[in-house]
């Protein structure tokens, strides 16, 4: 058998110094045996709109659908406002915890808007913007963070599964759901969200592999927001995640996650491909968590003001606003949106306060589908204790 031509190239390992080391030059074998699979070139993130709100070459080629852009912009503005209100409500003691999606609006809005409503979504826990786009009410989004329930909404209505807080577990659920979609001979697509940190979990990699091996209709959407709490992405992985896709046989995409039009376009493309039966895809969106990990976090402990400022300059909403204005969208639009935003904010505050928790008794009813003696007797104990206390 002949030596394959690619074997003759001595590509340096990613992350190590360029050039041939002493090891790779000592024998005639070295040339033949240079690592045969070295890093597939990482591609820069796809952009349609640059950080200044100007169209890139690709953007100019493709053009902008202004109605779509306005819709996505409005989605992002409301999502950001939800975050601001959420954080304020947490500070006021109305929410126990709030996980900010601040800065990641484009990644979320752009991707979920590229799906059909019949496509099931498996979120992680930071996908408020996704939830809003799927018509989930602020109350339902805040329910879990107010501590009154473990989940907020009915997946049967929004086609969005409940949040998964154990990192990465949802990627396997999505993969299994996609198996069901295929068994049903349906052309639905399943989308699952996860973070750069979660990508280190065994479950996530099992899901990549399982979906690829089975050619299943699932899109893995990673919001690489550069941090997993205090841990930078560099600690999690050597190569960018979109590069890992090809290793498993997933179609891999890399997109500027702060460019909502690019995210939308890339996702639409990937989803169409998946829908057509060409196997699963992974999209890595480069974005940034502009706030802390959660309302409890203190990001000053681990990241610099410079880094933050650098990413603030890439704000997805500011960027799109510039594009809209330079494309001739006038103040009427922005004024109307501003009014809508204020009304929405008032609604958020109001809905939050209407969220009252159930009594523990309901958990006894919800744990099992069928009668269960322990549930019955302990429920009775609880009710008796509660009534005694109340009396």
């Amino acid at each position, binding site marked *: 058998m002949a030596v394959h031509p690619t074997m003759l190239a001595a590509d340096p390992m990613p992350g190590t110094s360029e050039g041939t080391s002493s090891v790779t030059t000592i024998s005639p074998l070295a040339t033949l045996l240079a690592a045969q699979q070295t890093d597939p070139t990482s591609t820069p993130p796809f952009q349609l709109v640059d950080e200044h709100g100007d169209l890139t070459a690709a953007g100019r080629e493709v053009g902008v659908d202004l109605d779509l852009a306005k819709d996505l912009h409005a989605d992002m503005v409301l999502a950001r406002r939800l975050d601001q209100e959420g954080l304020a409500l947490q500070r006021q003691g109305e929410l126990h915890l709030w996980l900010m999606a601040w800065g990641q609006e484009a990644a979320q809005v752009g991707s979920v808007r590229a799906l059909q409503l019949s496509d099931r979504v498996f979120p992680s826990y930071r996908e408020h913007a996704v939830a809003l786009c799927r018509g989930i009410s602020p109350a339902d989004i805040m329910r879990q963070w107010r501590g009154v*329930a*473990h*989940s907020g909404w*009915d*997946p*049967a209505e929004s086609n969005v*599964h*409940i949040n*998964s807080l*154990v990192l990465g*577990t949802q*990627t*396997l*659920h*999505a*993969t*299994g*759901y*996609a*198996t*069901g*979609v295929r*068994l*049903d001979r349906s052309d639905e697509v399943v989308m699952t969200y996860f973070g750069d940190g979660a990508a280190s979990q*065994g*479950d996530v990699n*099992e*899901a990549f*592999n*399982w979906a690829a*091996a089975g050619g299943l209709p699932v899109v893995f959407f990673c919001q690489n927001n550069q941090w997993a709490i205090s841990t930078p992405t560099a600690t999690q992985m050597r190569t960018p995640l979109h590069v890992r896709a090809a290793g498993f046989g997933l179609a891999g995409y890399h997109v500027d996650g702060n460019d909502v039009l690019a995210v939308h376009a890339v996702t639409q493309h990937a989803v169409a491909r998946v829908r057509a039966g060409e196997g699963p895809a992974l999209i890595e969106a480069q974005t940034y968590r502009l706030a802390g990990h959660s309302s409890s976090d203190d990001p000053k402990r681990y990241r610099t003001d410079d880094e933050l400022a650098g990413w603030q300059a890439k704000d997805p909403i500011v960027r799109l606003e510039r594009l809209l204005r330079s494309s001739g969208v006038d103040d009427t639009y922005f004024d109307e949106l501003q009014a809508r935003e204020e009304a929405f904010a008032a609604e958020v505050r109001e809905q939050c306060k209407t969220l009252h928790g159930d009594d523990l008794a*309901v*958990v006894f*009813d*919800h*744990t*099992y*589908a*069928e009668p*269960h*003696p*322990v549930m019955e007797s302990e429920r009775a104990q609880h009710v008796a204790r509660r009534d005694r206390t109340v009396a």
Partner: protein
Amino acid sequence: MGTRYALGAAINAGLRAAMARDEKVLVMGEDIAALGGVFRVTDGLAAEFGTDRVVDTPLAESGIVGTAIGLALRGYRPVCEIQFDGFVYPAFDQIVSQLAKMRARSQGRLSLPIVIRIPVGGGIGAVEHHSESNEAYFAHTAGLRVVSCSNPDDAFHMIQQAIASDDPVIFYEPKRRYWDKGEVLDEPSRSLHEAAVLREGTDCTLVAHGPTVATALAAADAAREDGFSVGVVDLRTISPLDVPTLRKVAAASHRVVVVHEASTFLGIGAEIAATITEECFYDLEAPVLRVGAYNLPYPPAHMEDDFLPDVDRVLEAVDASLSF
């Protein structure tokens, strides 16, 4: 009217019946299709129902349970096979955090009718990790049901009842009894949630499940020869326990010995002892005693006969109970 089956074959027949009845039932696991499973429990199913419904999965237990959850959310009723007891732990997170809790976490909206079949226990001379009894982990986990079959009739009916349940069920199969034959009746004699009093006793009652039921029956026989009336209860359901039945036999025999293959420390015997003592304090003439494996990792096959509870150790405990 019944047919004789080996226990493994009875499960096979039960799976076949469940799959024929409901096309949403599918079976998945490692080596279950072409090979029919390492114990041949799924033998012939792929040929009969096709590989869409009898699925050889990649080799990843977390993936098996995690994707089964997704399938269940889509309306399917997956039956997962874990190849051996000792290989369920990679799926532990998906089982205890996802499978067990999904219904409660979703305010009762999302049921997961999933069965996880686990060939369990020792006594077949296997290498490490192939002989474990880990029912206590799952029994301690709220949201799961845990059941254990000990004979072909139960095996046939309980697997179908488990599949029909809208709750997740951990279904234990006593691997060293796979080849034991017995009569299988057309109709189930009892629900999935009832213990079976196999023998009434007035001096002492043995409580066992799965592989140790036969041990308990043999011990009861031996005790009878010595003039003692020793009852035997087959738990069948480990979580929840059938407390009324346990209460009844404890009250009737005043002495109870629990027999299982798991280590005693925090084994199901501990819960049974604590519960019976709470419920029947004045009825008991001796503490509930426990006969389990020693509190060791399962030892090499060469030593397993000394490790597992056997008739002698059961009788020793019965003696101890009687002499309290």
